[in-house]
C-alpha cells in the first residue's frame, strides 16, 4: 500500500480520535462533576447525554462572533488558533501501540511519527500554547483578560521548568528522546520496570506540574472565576471560545498520554511483552484514561491555590526537588 496513503490514514484516525476524545472529555467533565455532587449531569441529548458535545458545538457555531472595542482584531483572532493548534500538534509523537496489521495491510507503528526528538518536539510545541493565553489576554483589551493571561503564562513557564527537568530524568534513564524508545525500554513484561517505580518522586512532580501546565484546578489561574470573571477568555465568544476549550482539553489528553508513556510504560501490557496491537492500544487507553480522569477528579475535589502559593510551590519546592532528582538520577546512572 502507498506509504503516503498509510500516513494519511493514520493521521486522520489519530486526529479524529483526539478531537473525539476532547469532545468526550468535556462530557466526562460534566458527568463526573455531576456525580461527585450527587447530580445526574447532562442526560437529555442522546443516550446518557452522549450527543451533548455535538449540541454544544452546534450552539457555539451559531453564537455571535464578538470583538471588543479597542481590541487588536488580528491578534484577537490569532490567539485561539495559537492555543488550539500546538496542543493538537503534540499528539503526533505519542506512540499509541506497536505494529498494526489490519485487513492484511501493515500500517507500521501506531503513531503519526516516531521522531528521534519526540520529547523535545512535544515540549517545544506544547510550550507555544502559552502564546494563545497571553496574546488572547492582551488582545482582548480588558483588565481581567490581561491579568488572567499574565498570571497563566507566568505559571506555565514556571512549571515548564520542573516539567522539562523531570522529563530529562526519564530521558537520561532511557538514553533516548524518542517516546517509542522510552516505551520499549519499559516494555519488558514486568511492570516493575516502569519508570514510576524507579522515579516515584519524579512521577509525583510530573503529575502535579501537568496540572499547572494545562491550567487546570487547583492551579487554574488562567480563569479563576471569582477574581477574573473568566480570565484570558473573558471577551471571547462563539467558536473562538470553543477553540480555547478544544486546546485546553487536547492539552489535557496529550498530557495524560505523555504521563502514561513516560512513567507507566505507555502501551506495555503487564506480563505480556509482545501483546497484539489492540491489547496494547486498550492498555494505553486505560492508563491515559486514568490520568484524564485524574484531571477531572482533582478539579472537583480541591479548592484553588493562591497565586503566591503556586509560585512558591513551583520555584521553591518543585524546581529544587526536580534538580535534585535529576542529580541523583545522573549520579546513579553514571555509577551503575
Amino acid at each position, binding site marked *: 500500500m502507498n506509504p503516503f496513503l498509510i500516513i494519511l490514514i493514520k493521521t486522520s484516525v489519530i486526529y479524529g480520535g483526539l478531537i473525539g476524545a476532547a469532545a468526550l472529555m468535556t462530557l466526562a467533565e460534566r458527568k463526573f462533576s455531576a456525580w461527585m455532587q450527587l447530580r445526574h449531569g447532562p442526560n437529555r441529548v442522546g443516550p446518557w447525554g452522549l450527543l451533548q458535545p455535538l449540541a454544544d458545538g452546534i450552539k457555539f457555531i451559531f453564537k455571535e462572533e464578538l470583538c471588543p472595542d479597542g481590541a487588536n482584531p488580528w491578534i484577537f483572532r490569532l490567539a485561539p488558533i495559537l492555543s488550539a493548534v500546538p496542543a493538537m500538534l503534540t499528539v503526533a509523537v505519542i506512540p499509541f501501540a506497536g505494529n498494526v496489521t489490519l485487513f492484511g495491510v501493515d500500517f507500521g507503528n501506531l503513531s503519526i511519527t516516531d521522531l528521534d526528538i519526540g520529547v523535545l518536539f512535544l515540549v517545544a510545541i506544547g510550550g507555544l500554547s502559552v502564546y494563545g493565553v*497571553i496574546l488572547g489576554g492582551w488582545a482582548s483589551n480588558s483588565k481581567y483578560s490581561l491579568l488572567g493571561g499574565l498570571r497563566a*503564562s507566568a505559571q506555565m513557564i514556571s512549571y515548564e521548568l520542573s516539567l522539562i527537568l523531570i522529563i530529562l530524568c526519564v530521558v537520561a534513564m532511557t538514553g533516548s*528522546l524518542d517516546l517509542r524508545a522510552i516505551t520499549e525500554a519499559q516494555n519488558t513484561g514486568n511492570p516493575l520496570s516502569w519508570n514510576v517505580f524507579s522515579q516515584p518522586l519524579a512521577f509525583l512532580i510530573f503529575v502535579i506540574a501537568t496540572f499547572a501546565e494545562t491550567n487546570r484546578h487547583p492551579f487554574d489561574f488562567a480563569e479563576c472565576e471569582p477574581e477574573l470573571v473568566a480570565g484570558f477568555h473573558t471577551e471571547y465568544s462563539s467558536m473562538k471560545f470553543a477553540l480555547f476549550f478544544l486546546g485546553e482539553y487536547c492539552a489535557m489528553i496529550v498530557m495524560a498520554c505523555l504521563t502514561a508513556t513516560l512513567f507507566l510504560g505507555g502501551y506495555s501490557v503487564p506480563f505480556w511483552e509482545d501483546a497484539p496491537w489492540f491489547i496494547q492500544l486498550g492498555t494505553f487507553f486505560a492508563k491515559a484514561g486514568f490520568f484524564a480522569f485524574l484531571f477531572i477528579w482533582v478539579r472537583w475535589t480541591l479548592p484553588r491555590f493562591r497565586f503566591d502559593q503556586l509560585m512558591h510551590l513551583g520555584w521553591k519546592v518543585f524546581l529544587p526537588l526536580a534538580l535534585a532528582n535529576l542529580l541523583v538520577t545522573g549520579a546513579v546512572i553514571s555509577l551503575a
Partner: protein
Amino acid sequence: MVDLLFYVAALVAVLTAVGVVLARNPVISVVSLLTCFGSLAVIYLLAGFQFLAAIQILVYGGAIMVLFLFVVMLLNLGGLSPEDEDGDDPLFHDRRRSAGGLAVAVALGSASLIGILRGARHLAEPANGYALPDEGFDALPALAEAMFTRYSLPFEAASVLLLATTVGVMVLAKRQRAVTPAGEKRP
C-alpha cells in the same frame, strides 16, 4: 518540494523580520519575531538539524519570547502615535544618538552580510544539501561534547552576556520610569 518549502520559509522569515522593525505596536513586533523564529526552525529542519529546530522553538519561541512579551506588557508601551515622529519620540530626538544607532546597525548589517556571502560560497558546494542525514539524531552526542568541553567557556560567556543584557534592560526601564513625574500618565 523541499526547495519550495525553503523559499516559503525564507520569505516568511525575511518579511516578519522586517515586520519586527516596522511594526508600530510592540506586541505585533513580538508576534512577528516569533513567526520569524518559527520559519528559521523550519529552515533548520529542512537542513537536517532536527535538534536545532526543536531547541529554536523551545528556547526562543517557548521561553525567551514569552519573557519579551511579558516585558512589553508590563512596561505598558503603547504604540507610537503619529505626533511622536515629529521629533517628540526619544529615539529620534537626539541626532547624535540616532547617528550612532545607524552606525551600529550598518556595522551589524554588513557583518551579517559578509557572513551570508561567505556561507553562500560553501552552500554552492555539493554537500548533503537539504537532505536529512540518514543517522538522524546521532550528531547530538558530538554537539553536546563540543558544547560542554571545547566551547564551554564561550558558552558560559554567552550566558553571562545575556544576564548582563537583562540587568541593563532592567536598569534602563527603571530609570525611564523614575524620570516620569508621579501622577503623570505616560502616553
